[in-house]
């Protein structure tokens, strides 16, 4: 069984500092939702509020329609994986995992059975008798997950569970956690500051800044259709070129259809240019759906699987573009210092407003 979570009007202030500023979000039963944001964005506070460790100043948190905002953490029946795992060093792996069951009065025999099954789910069954300090970081992480799922909570919260692992192990665990989510079918709320992790694992991603949710959407929409410059900048590499300021030397001709759909009505419209979506135009054949622009190649960096070109446009905008390293692509690369033409397909293009809601244009 998975539970839905309905959060409405959640606020938390520390003195005059607003950490959660009117957060409302509804999380579907069985959903994997990731809270993504820079440090200080309120993502961990939001998670701790759901867990019950932080008491909000206002708002409501309903689980399956039942209000829990005033409930003590131990009465919420929510599984939690902490950033540094928070495994009990004076208990063995098996005792750690069985602890939530012991608290719920489950008898010794059943306790051992269920702890063993939870450990098996994270492929740690042969480590039940080990002490915590005998485990590697990745193993501890798995034990922490086993302890969070052993009592079959309907909601599992994870606070940057992979941040202490090295890159390779992290990617492995991402796949494993995603698989675990599919088999268990529980609602998972996951906190990370790693945008790639968020895109890889989630059903939906909520991007937070200064205690507010800036955008909540599927990974594809968050990446391809960010609502504003902050979200675009935070998720992935991005370059921006102004579509109004033609006086500075970059003339971006867009079709009327594109202009009507994406540009009209936006204050200070900026064309979002993702490195992998920019083409290098070698022949002057005119495709109608291309937005073209010229630049000078500052450097060309071969990285094995990728080749990265840094370019400066006439108005001084610096762009990064990346291509695969197939021979036909390599042949088309500009020489360092030369002027070359780039383009982006209109279907790959996206326009954000340079003016943030509630902020003034620079």
């Amino acid at each position, binding site marked *: 069984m998975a539970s839905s979570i309905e959060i409405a009007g959640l606020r938390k202030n520390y003195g005059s500092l607003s950490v959660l500023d009117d957060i409302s979000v509804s999380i579907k039963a069985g959903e994997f939702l990731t809270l993504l944001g820079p440090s200080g964005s309120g993502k961990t506070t939001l998670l701790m509020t759901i867990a*019950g460790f932080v008491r909000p100043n206002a708002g409501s948190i309903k689980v399956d329609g039942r209000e829990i905002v005033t409930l003590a953490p*131990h009465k919420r029946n929510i599984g939690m994986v902490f950033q540094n795992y*928070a495994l*009990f060093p004076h208990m063995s792996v098996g005792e750690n995992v069985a602890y*939530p069951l012991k608290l719920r009065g489950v008898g010794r025999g059943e306790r051992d059975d269920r702890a063993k099954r939870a450990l098996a789910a994270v492929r740690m069954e042969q480590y039940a008798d080990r002490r915590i300090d005998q485990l590697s970081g990745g193993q501890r992480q798995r034990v922490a997950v086993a302890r969070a799922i052993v009592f079959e909570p309907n909601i599992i919260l994870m606070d940057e569970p992979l941040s202490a692992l090295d890159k390779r192990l992290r990617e492995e665990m991402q796949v494993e956690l995603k698989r675990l989510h599919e088999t268990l079918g529980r609602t998972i709320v996951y906190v990370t500051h790693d945008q790639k992790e968020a895109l890889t694992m989630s059903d939906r991603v909520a991007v937070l800044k200064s205690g507010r949710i800036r955008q909540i959407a599927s990974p594809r929409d968050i990446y391809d259709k960010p609502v504003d410059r902050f979200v675009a900048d935070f998720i992935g590499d991005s370059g921006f070129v102004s579509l109004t300021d033609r006086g500075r030397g970059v003339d971006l001709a867009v079709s009327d259809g594109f202009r009507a759909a994406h540009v009209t009505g936006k204050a200070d419209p900026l064309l979002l240019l993702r490195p992998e979506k920019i083409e290098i135009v070698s022949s002057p054949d005119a495709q109608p759906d291309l937005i073209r622009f010229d630049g000078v190649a500052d450097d060309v960096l071969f990285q094995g699987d990728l080749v990265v070109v840094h370019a400066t446009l006439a108005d001084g905008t610096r762009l990064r573009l990346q291509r695969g390293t197939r021979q036909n692509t390599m042949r088309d690369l500009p020489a360092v210092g030369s002027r070359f033409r780039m383009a982006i397909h209109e279907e790959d293009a996206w326009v954000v407003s340079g003016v943030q809601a509630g902020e003034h244009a620079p």
Partner: protein
Amino acid sequence: MSLQLNARLLTALETRGKAELALMVLPSLMIVALVIAPAIWLGVLSFSVDGAPSLAHYQRMIDNSSYAAIFLTTFQLAGLVTVITVVVGYPTTYAITLLPPRLSALALACVAIPFWTSLLVRTYAWMVILQRNGILNGWLLDAGLIERPLRMSNSFFGTTVGMVHIMLPFFIFPLYASMRSIDGNLTRAAHGLGATPTRAFLDVFLPLSKQGLIAGALLTFVLCLGFYVTPQLLGGGNVTTLSIKIQQNVIVYADWGAASALAVVLVVIVGLMLLASRLLGGRGAD
């Protein structure tokens, strides 16, 4: 050329290393002369009577029943003081760790300031408070709670109170250090997994602070065993501990051998206790 220079410089550095080592000779000699040699001399004294080897000093401890009473008093006092120190000190220390940083620093200062005050001054202060016509008796009489002044100084009770006060910092500081090293997320995790705050404390915080608790209690107990000033002044001759007996043997009877024998026994007991705690504690520690 430069290789030769390097070789010369490297030799010079090596020589300097030896010179630095030579500097340590004097302090080492001082420790031998001032600490180790006298201890050995005392040990030798305890095994001799009038210059001849003898076990008479140890034999006396077994034969003379007053010694058994002295050992009993010493251990009772040390045990009682330790128990009270733990009962008062543990919650106090726990409370200090829960305070916000500024307040906890203030609370620690409140523990430390009396610690820096002279032992003698603190003991005399307790004499003033506890004596027959002292402050406490005055209050109790004025409040009508008692009709005649209680006998609180010159007694086991007075000694216990004074020693608890003196021992508390010795218990609180090591325990505080050990409690601060416990990850706060652990009790939080227990709480989140379904433990009531009390249960989380009992299942997680208490076992993790056990090491510090034992270390602090042991330190307190050992310090109590050899404590002299407070039992002497607040006991008023009615509490005879090992340390007082040692002092009597030297000052009143001028019998260094008897005094040394008591000291040796005390050192052996303390040594055995530390060894035992090490063996017991070692299992949980790693």
